[in-house]
């Protein structure tokens, strides 16, 4: 069990690094897919089969397909990559260094990693996820679906072809 955890953790971290470091956007996307799959592996180690499979269907199967789709259509590659100016690069290095400093300070203070609740083996199964979504979190759940609907309507509005440009 612990070996598997370390294996998945190593894959997650390495692939996440490749996402940032890869020169070609397509390689970045593929590394991100690998990262998502290894996170699904973590879910399965926690017996959260439902979360794992939904994670694969939604992130790996739908969102990353769209990412790949756009990258293929635009044919992004190294030559079309925007070159950053020197000032931007210096600013990025300084900002990154500051984040590192903050994180180091936080770690030095000693973050206590106490679980807020005891681990329940059934948390990630269909039954318990469904129960908590439709009882405890019904309102946030419905509100977020309305949010998605509004995003969809907005996308359709933007993508709609103007029938009569004079009238607008």
């Amino acid at each position, binding site marked *: 069990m612990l070996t598997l955890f370390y294996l998945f953790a190593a894959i997650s971290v390495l692939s996440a690094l490749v996402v940032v470091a890869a020169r070609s956007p397509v390689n970045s996307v593929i590394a991100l897919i690998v990262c998502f799959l290894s996170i699904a592996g973590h879910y399965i180690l926690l017996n959260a089969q439902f979360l794992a499979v939904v994670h694969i269907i939604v992130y*790996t*199967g*739908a969102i990353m*397909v769209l990412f790949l789709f756009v990258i293929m*259509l635009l044919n992004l590659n190294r030559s079309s990559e925007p070159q950053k100016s020197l000032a931007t690069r210096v600013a990025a290095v300084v900002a990154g260094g500051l984040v590192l400093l903050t994180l180091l300070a936080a770690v030095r203070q000693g973050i206590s990693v106490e679980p807020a609740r005891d681990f329940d083996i059934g948390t990630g199964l*269909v039954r318990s996820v469904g129960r908590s979504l439709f009882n405890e979190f019904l309102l946030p759940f419905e509100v977020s679906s309305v949010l998605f609907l509004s995003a969809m309507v907005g996308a359709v509005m933007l993508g709609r072809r103007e029938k009569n440009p004079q009238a607008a």
Partner: protein
Amino acid sequence: MIAIVIFLVALLLVTLGVAAYATYAERKVAAFMQDRIGPDRAGPFGLLQPIADGVKMIMKEDFMPASANRWLFFLGPAIAMTTALLTGVVIPWGGTLDLGGTAFTLQVADPDIGILYVFAMVSIGVYGIMLGGWASNNKYALYGAIRAASQMVSYELAMGMSIVALVILTGSLSLNDIVEQQRAGLWNIVYQPLGFLLFVICAFAECNRAPFDLPECETELVGGYHTEYSSMKLGFYLFAEYVNMFISSAVISTLFFGGYDVPFLDGLGLPQNVTVVLGTVGLFLKITFFIFLFMWVRWTLPRFRYDQLMDLGWKSLIPLAILNVLLTGVGYYLKNGI
């Protein structure tokens, strides 16, 4: 443990065997529909044709375009084949055998989320086509890949919705539970005729079979996403399509036609092992029928135009699927209450 490994290997061999003979059946069915004889040279009735085809595929020169992305070119067919083969493990192939005192169920794994697992594998399968098409660095292959991606994403929605309606009825995502419920009552096709129709149409689209074979339509795109592929890499793409067809037929039989349930078989009073084996035979007969249906449709209907394909998916199938979910929900409420 040992029994599971043996069963896994057997499952792999059966899947590959059925897929191999599906290629033979496709050519024979096509020949029958077009009033020809079909392959009859290799062995009696041409029965050795799949082996001859396989040897031919392996012996051909493996050519890779100079400007192709090397490892993605290699990864494409590998993903297509792997995801096609991975789906079979959650399908219940039969009941529980009694092997000298130890019970053995003819299903590799029965997770809580069986049907969603099938769905996840289908959604990963599209990467095989997309990456292969893009890595070829060929405009026809890229068009094929982009068509495949948009087609599969569009039809996944309606497919998911038709499963939602089914799950409202069964109250379980486990494929074994779904089959056991059908054994106790009527087959799901009785309750879900519209859902069945939607699911079959989407399964055709997900397998890239005619009339939805736009990703590889030879009259417009040369060979589609596998234009640049040769030798066994091409073989894997073509073969993965037949494996997918076999698995889809198995899923359709399991969800809507009772899986390994054969009517009135339990009442005959046969020994348990015989009943289980006959049930599995029954499942394979159903699968054979659906594979034949795939071929029948391919040699009967012309291919859709691309805009017709998208119109059908988004403007007909998805509204119908939502309507089906709504009707099923109302029906369930009227019958059982909340």
